[in-house]
């Protein structure tokens, strides 16, 4: 048990920001240090509260005498529904407390940590709402429940039926997917129907995949780009729920049928089911993101993830956005951060063109040629200079 490891606590050898950073580490090599740091933060808080009460005028972030929240400090809880369909269930672990033997609880716990880490360390987003909202999960929801979802406040995981599906905490991409629904809810709030619903789904797949890649330290070339790898039992002919790299190839099973995701607008699915095929047509923007990452190489959470994050949090996406409008918004985000005609901008335009949504996008490149030349600095609008762009912290809702 890592909880028995003690780090310096009362004596402030380790500064709070470093404790926060240590506490967020998910690398197993640092598990003991991370847990000790979490314990330390927990034990420290009453002391800090005491100091704040003693000197309230010097701590403007303290309101009402409560403890100051450390930005970026994770606050998790996992509850156990024990096979019922009632939320939240019984609290089995909260922040600062040692692990419990249940592997499902541990997977949910670690997944919340990895997701929080991606958003905070890469995009300076403090939890799903940008204001340090506690991350709460419920596991063992229902009996043989074949699903996981975000209910607007918490993530909920079923155990699967054991015949088609394993437990839904088994894939980190699923945990990242659900929490990203929370991020979308607090930002662009994309309507979960039709094309805007498919963009909402795709955002969850994109950042769900990035959470896993970031936690594993995988580059675009090394990553599998699968959503829900390992969720199917070995009785199913399939590797995952979806493939972002090659939509439509994740499974082909005699009972489940074939993965129905289209990989371009040519295969766009018109259906009334699944809120207008939100989990089907998401294959199109999913592949566009993959193609951007493939073109740029390196780590997908860097430029590609930043462009998609900027788009989601720009405040300019309509809640009923279409694929075409979303494509234009990503191109604008690429221009704003990296400049018109930049390698990143060209990659975005090329990706959308490949999936059948390039109409009108290339105009922004000036030359209209693939790989169009970069405009001289003097011709670039002031507002589009990348050095002036700072990551958006959060929108005030």
């Amino acid at each position, binding site marked *: 048990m890592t909880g028995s490891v003690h780090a310096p606590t009362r004596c402030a050898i380790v500064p709070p920001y470093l404790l926060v950073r240590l506490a967020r580490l998910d690398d197993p090599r640092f598990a003991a240090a991370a847990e000790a740091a979490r314990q330390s933060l927990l034990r420290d808080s009453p002391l800090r509260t005491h100091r704040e009460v003693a000197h309230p005028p010097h701590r403007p972030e303290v309101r009402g005498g409560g403890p100051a929240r450390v930005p970026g400090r994770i606050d998790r809880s996992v509850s156990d529904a024990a096979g019922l369909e009632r939320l939240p269930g019984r609290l089995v672990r909260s922040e600062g407390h040692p692990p419990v033997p249940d592997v499902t609880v541990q997977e949910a716990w670690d997944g919340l940590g990895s997701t929080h880490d991606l958003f905070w360390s890469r995009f300076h987003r403090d939890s799903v709402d940008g204001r340090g909202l506690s991350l709460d999960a419920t596991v063992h929801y229902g009996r043989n429940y074949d699903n996981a979802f975000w209910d607007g406040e918490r993530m909920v995981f079923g155990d699967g039926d054991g015949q088609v599906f394993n437990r839904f905490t088994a894939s980190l991409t699923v945990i990242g997917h659900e929490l990203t629904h929370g991020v979308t809810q607090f930002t662009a709030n994309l309507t979960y129907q039709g094309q805007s619903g498919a963009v909402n789904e795709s955002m969850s797949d994109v950042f769900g995949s990035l959470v896993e890649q970031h936690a594993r330290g995988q580059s675009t070339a090394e990553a599998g780009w699968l959503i829900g790898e390992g969720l199917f039992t070995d009785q199913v002919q399939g590797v995952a*729920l979806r493939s972002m790299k090659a939509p439509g190839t994740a499974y082909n099973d005699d009972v489940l049928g074939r993965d*129905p995701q289209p990989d371009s607008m040519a295969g766009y699915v018109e259906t009334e089911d699944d809120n207008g095929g939100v989990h089907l047509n998401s294959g199109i923007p999913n592949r566009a993101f993959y193609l951007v990452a493939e073109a740029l190489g390196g780590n997908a959470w860097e430029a590609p993830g930043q462009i998609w994050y900027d788009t989601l949090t720009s405040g300019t996406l309509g809640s009923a956005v279409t694929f075409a409008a979303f494509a234009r918004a990503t191109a604008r985000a690429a221009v704003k951060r990296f400049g018109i005609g930049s390698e990143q901008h060209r990659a975005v335009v090329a990706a959308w063109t490949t999936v059948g949504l390039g109409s009108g996008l290339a105009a922004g490149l000036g030359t209209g040629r693939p790989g169009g030349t970069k405009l001289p600095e003097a011709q670039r609008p002031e507002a589009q200079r990348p050095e002036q762009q700072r990551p958006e912290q959060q929108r005030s809702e």
Partner: protein
Amino acid sequence: MKVVVSRSGGIAGIRTTWEVDVDAQPDAADWAELITALPWAEVSARAPEPDRFVYRIRCAPNEVVLAEPQVCGPWKELVDRVKASRRAESGPGPRPAGPRRSPDSPLGGFGADSQPPG
């Protein structure tokens, strides 16, 4: 009389259909009573929620679409009964509880109005 329950959505986005021929059931009268008592006309639209299931329930001439949280009371009774009945009919097999291909769908377990990708 046939009752068809089709579940779509969920994080997997996999459509599953269960179908029961009510007249062929030993307790056909119970089924008929349950089905006629359902509040078919009282279902209101509800804003979709991420990754929740969507249920489409058909029993000619009625058809409703229910969000997962709306499947409660008599609707839940019907859905559970259809699922259990379908499972019982399938008999022993490698995956008796698994989703079945819908007999009325050219694409197996997926939407009849879906197009194959590509």
